[in-house]
């Protein structure tokens, strides 16, 4: 990996952390619901699962927005490059 890849690796690690933390918690609450019969736990686990799915949903929406913006920029750059190439032709 080159030194320029380090920030990318850090970013990927951050994104993975942001996704895995709520996934682990949701999975953990589901596991507790499976093995324990407790009304208090049922209410709190359900509440936390809803919070976790909402958090994941927001994060995924943000990721999609970033990817869309990135794709749009790439398309514009490709169009600009094609236009410049056309205009540069004699």
């Amino acid at each position, binding site marked *: 990996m080159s030194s320029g890849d*380090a920030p990318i690796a850090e970013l990927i690690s951050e994104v993975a*952390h942001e996704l895995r933390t709520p996934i682990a918690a949701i999975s*953990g609450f589901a596991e507790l619901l499976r093995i324990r019969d407790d009304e208090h736990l049922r209410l709190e686990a359900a509440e936390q699962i809803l919070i976790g799915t909402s958090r994941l949903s927001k994060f995924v929406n943000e990721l999609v927005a970033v990817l869309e913006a990135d794709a749009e920029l790439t398309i514009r750059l490709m169009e600009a490059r094609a236009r410049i190439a056309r205009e540069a032709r004699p």
Partner: protein
Amino acid sequence: MTEGAAQRVLVVEDDAMAQSWIRLALEGSEFAVAGTASSAAETLDLIERRRPELLLVDYRLPDTVGTELLRDLRGQGIATPAVLMTANLERGFNEAASEAGAQGTVLKSGRPEDLLHTLRTVAAGLEAFDVRHPKRDPGRGALSPREREVLRRVAAGATNGEIAAELGVGAETVKTLLARTFAKLGVRKRAEAVAQAHDLGLL
């Protein structure tokens, strides 16, 4: 297990969902949450007030990383056995945790039995490092290019602020990179890091 026999665990975790899950996962076990710190800054005060028998520390904290917090605590003479948690599988995480003074690591998998097994092992005076973390590569591979870059600037006498400005990153990033580098090299001071890196031919 009776209330009186409960082992008191201080949880250092800033994520509300994870805090809630840990509390519920420990309910009914021989462990009780003695308190929850959301940052490294809150941890020392809670340790002094609650006197926990175990520390359960998340790696990513808002003001530092778990290994650096543990290193600070050990430096202050606090020997409470500690388990470090992380959501990601990280190469060399067990080695870094051990060097920082942890007795165990656990991956945030959401399985209460994993957490309880780790806490029970460490409470019994043994070590419990999560084998799912890949082992650290020996020698040069232990430091990433960016970590070596930071270390080279440290060797040249630059401050964290100067390194941050030179690399175009935040001061917190430099702090994190240095903490990782120190952990990988098994040192606690900048001068030790530079000397160790020279010895290993990393600079």
